[in-house]
């Protein structure tokens, strides 16, 4: 009896849930797609009415075409590289066959870096800079957070250096790297080191500030627990202070990585580090009819990679933080 009377109710409930699901799907998928479509329309409309010295501003179609071109160029370059290596190996094998004592030279293929290579370089640079920033910011943040005297001493410096643009740092970093980083056979290119250090200088502040705040804000209850247990200082820091600061640290790291990626493009442009920034700069200097659409392709790529990096950080944050849900 009850089931009979309840059945329509249950069906209704299910129906509303399905409706809700459809609504939810429309909202979660439909709206972004709508936004994207409107943006593309607007872009197309605006692009066709902008005339530059390099021709019309590229619309979505032109940019999409450039993505194809860039990929094709990459494959082409790879093929040439493989051909070069194969030819070299064949030649060396022949030389060795004729004269087993012959000195053969093995040279790597030095081709033009393709768009994909440049993405790789950019990622490597930003990650190196970010890791370096983290290695500086977290220990320093822990010390500043633990000791209010150190905090008082460093805080003005942090506040002053935090807002400095990468463009201001770059000339100094370039000169310092040129002066100090001298070796016969450098492990990294100077331009790489310059970009990396610039990224570090600009991206360490959020991590530093958040680590400081997180470490300083350990709840007094937990500190009392530690005092009652008479935890030695190091254990106190390791078991109480650091874990409780982890969520704040990760928030800082996420912001830092975002800044690192933004700064990198500017740094590469000026330092001529073979990454996406240099790609944009070269295309700008190149000034061909395709340049603008290639730059636009780079802009979109930069955006997508930045978004991806942020998502990865978010994932790590959820893994590492005890308070994340």
């Amino acid at each position, binding site marked *: 009896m009850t089931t009979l009377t309840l059945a329509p109710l249950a069906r209704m409930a299910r129906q509303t849930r399905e409706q809700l699901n459809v609504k939810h799907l429309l909202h979660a998928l439909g709206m972004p797609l709508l936004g994207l479509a409107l943006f593309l329309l607007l872009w197309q409309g605006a692009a066709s009415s902008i005339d530059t010295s390099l021709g019309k501003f590229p619309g979505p179609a032109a940019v999409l075409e450039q993505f194809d071109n860039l990929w094709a160029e990459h494959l082409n370059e790879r093929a040439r590289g493989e051909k070069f290596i194969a030819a070299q190996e064949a030649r060396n094998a022949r030389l060795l066959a004729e004269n087993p004592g012959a000195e053969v030279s093995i040279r790597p293929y030095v081709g033009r870096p393709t768009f994909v290579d440049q993405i790789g370089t950019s990622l490597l640079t930003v990650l190196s800079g970010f890791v370096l920033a983290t290695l500086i910011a977290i220990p320093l943040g822990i010390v500043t957070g633990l000791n209010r005297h150190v905090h008082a001493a460093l805080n003005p410096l942090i506040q002053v250096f935090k807002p400095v643009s990468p463009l201001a740092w770059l000339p100094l970093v370039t000169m310092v790297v040129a002066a100090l980083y001298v070796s016969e056979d450098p492990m990294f290119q100077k331009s790489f080191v310059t970009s990396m250090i610039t990224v570090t200088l600009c991206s360490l502040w959020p991590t530093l500030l958040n680590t400081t705040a997180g470490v300083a804000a350990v709840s007094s209850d937990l500190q009392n*627990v530690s005092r009652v247990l008479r935890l030695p200082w190091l254990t106190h820091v390791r*078991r109480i202070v650091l874990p409780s600061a982890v969520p704040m640290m990760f928030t800082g790291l996420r912001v830092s990585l975002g800044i690192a990626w933004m700064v990198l493009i500017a740094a590469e442009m000026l330092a001529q580090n073979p990454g996406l920034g240099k790609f944009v700069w070269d295309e700008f200097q190149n000034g061909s009819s395709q340049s603008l659409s290639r730059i636009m392709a780079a802009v979109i790529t930069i955006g997508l990679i930045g978004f991806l990096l942020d998502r990865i950080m978010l994932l790590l944050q959820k893994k590492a933080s*005890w308070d994340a849900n």
Partner: protein
Amino acid sequence: MTRTQLELSGVSIEFPTPKGPFLALDNVNLKIAEGEFVSLIGHSGCGKSTVLNIVAGLLQATRGGCILDGKEVSEPGPERAVVFQNHSLLPWLTAYQNVELAVQQVFRKQMNKAQMREWIIHNLELVHMGHAIHKRPGEISGGMKQRVGIARALAMQPKVLLMDEPFGALDALTRAHLQDSLMEIQRDLNNTVIMITHDVDEAVLLSDRIVMMTNGPAATIGEILSIDLPRPRNRVTLADDPAYNRYRQAVLRFLYEKQRKVTDLPVKRKREGMESGKAPVKAAADTTGDQGQARSALA
């Protein structure tokens, strides 16, 4: 009664304020015997927590001092384990790991790994938390968190167990459960316990003696009431016990007639923060006893 284990003599404490020193406690004298269960009761802001923190070593008395087994207390230590009001578990550790942190610190030299493990589980089972030892504080209820907090304190094998309103934040039923658990544990282990409470029934039910504090500033001990009810005590049968009700009335009379809070101004409430105004409400919403009585005492 056995020998005196803990002695507070002439304890006074002043806190510096911009307007000059504020005398929070004045000349508190108290002797507590081994295995005794003592409750501190009084209105908000009367310095109950301050007394407890001085015994814990978290605060230092300005004058006088606290002596435990012939030695003056000068810093916190695990022989005076504290159960904090809001459990104070480390949120990133499981129940087991929270107790483990304490056990590792206290019994590093006496126990091997297997013994520690056994001891940790034993203590969690003692508070009926054996089923959830690998849960984090965020995954268990408030009552369960408080149980883990108690297990952590018990696992230190303290000479004195200090409890700062351990059940204050819990609902009435959970509180009653935990009170029963605590009585059981106290019967088995015979710990010396000092407990702060706002709850008159809780105080009478659990204590050997109730220490009633006068209102601050310069708060001190007003009266001490010995509760000579046979143990084990049962909250249901005690509800009709004339002796039990006499004790309750004595405490209520002290709190709401002799030490009635007349200066309960909004300004003061604000300064006292969360604690303020809680006492009368809680007493009126008493869990076990006759509610009408508590209300009439309030009126």
